[in-house]
């Protein structure tokens, strides 16, 4: 009798283990895709995947599949905070204590772009809308830096807006004296400058700490900025802003070619905005 019980117990243990082996990856994927942690930053990859930065890591989400992308090696205390998608679809990751890194999708490794930055205190990064080699990094202590050779050499171009920059983007919206515009989310609102860095001015009357900013590359006058969890939309290059209703406080934004405006929320959800203004989960 004891032998039978032991055999039964052993079989059940094996069955449980087998079940675990089969089910665990799916559980891990499901947890990674939407694990309730706030979305820190968002961007898209060349394949159309959404890249989602959470405290638990970086994930590429395509359809129902979420794949973890290992973060670059960094010192303890480094805070990945900002993602950008270059004109050649390169992915950039930056943050305080981390500096700037580019992901090589062929070798699946991160390449440090920090050799000529004065320090690693990068709070936000942007990639030029049309020039693949041009990048912008905002360092909390040192101001605005630009690289025109893919991050090999960084040059300080400006002190940046008066208030510290939390997020920023480059857009090829027409009308610049140079090749485009920079929109910076600061603690005061959105600041705007032509990419000659001629001077920074307020983009409209939107006030508050801007935690995320994005724009529609197909219609670059359309800018979206998050203030205290609410999305504000400008259809005229930042002159005037209107509030967009959102079901949850928003923490990150991206513009996906396939899904349009995508919002990452405080609760970890990823929502895409439909033509009628409705929000639906991106993986449904």
């Amino acid at each position: 009798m004891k032998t039978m019980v032991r055999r039964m117990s052993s079989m059940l243990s094996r069955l449980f283990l087998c079940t675990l082996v089969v089910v665990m990856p799916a559980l891990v994927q499901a947890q990674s895709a939407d694990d309730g942690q706030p979305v820190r930053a968002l961007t898209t990859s060349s394949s159309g995947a959404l890249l989602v930065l959470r405290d638990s890591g970086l994930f590429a989400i395509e359809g129902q599949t979420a794949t973890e992308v290992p973060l670059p090696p960094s010192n303890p205390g480094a805070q990945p905070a900002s993602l950008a998608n270059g004109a050649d679809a390169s992915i950039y990751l930056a943050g305080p204590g981390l500096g700037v890194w580019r992901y090589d999708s062929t070798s699946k490794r991160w390449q440090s772009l920090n050799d000529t930055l004065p320090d690693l205190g990068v709070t936000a990064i942007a990639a030029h809308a049309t020039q693949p080699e041009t990048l912008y990094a905002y360092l909390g202590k040192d101001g605005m830096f630009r690289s025109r050779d893919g991050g090999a050499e960084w040059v300080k171009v400006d002190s940046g807006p008066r208030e510290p920059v939390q997020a920023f983007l480059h857009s090829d919206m027409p009308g610049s004296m140079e090749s485009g515009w920079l929109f910076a989310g600061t603690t005061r609102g959105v600041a705007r400058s032509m990419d000659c860095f001629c001077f920074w001015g307020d983009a409209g009357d939107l006030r508050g700490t801007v935690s995320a900013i994005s724009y529609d590359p197909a219609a670059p006058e359309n800018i979206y900025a998050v203030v205290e969890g609410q999305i504000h939309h400008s259809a005229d290059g930042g002159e005037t802003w209107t509030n967009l209703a959102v079901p949850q406080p928003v923490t990150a934004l991206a513009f996906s070619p396939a899904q349009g405006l995508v919002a990452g929320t405080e609760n970890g959800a990823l929502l895409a905005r439909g033509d009628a203004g409705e929000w639906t989960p991106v993986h449904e």
Partner: protein
Amino acid sequence: MPVATLVNGRLSMNKGIYLLALLVAPVLADASGGAASANSAPPDVAQGRQIYEQYCTACHGWQAEGAANWQKLDEKGEMPPPPHDETGHTWRHSDAMLFRMIAEGWRYPFNKSDRLTMPAFGESLTDQEIAAVVEYLKTLWTEEQREYQATESQ
């Protein structure tokens, strides 16, 4: 009288010396039988200054000081003329961009009208004259700004 004040009350010493060379250069050139001295300013700078004084001072000022509060939009929603000296942003633009702005003008995209913010001078000035103005503007910047602008022009 200090050199910088002689030329421009707001100019730096470097710029004052540069402009002093500009004033003295023709005298030196005459003294050497008309040949340009090794220390003289580039030949088109004097011409550029003359053209600047004729066409640009009405908006940008005799001292290239620009409009007061040039960083704030005026009552028409227009961007006032910026200074061209070291306090402005002219030095941030490449030669090609400066040439284009003088020749074709430029409209502040948020001025809610079709009018040009900076008028076009392509019909009034030859290419050589526009290039001379650009050369003159470079005399109004610091050495670091000239270096930055030279890099932008590459």
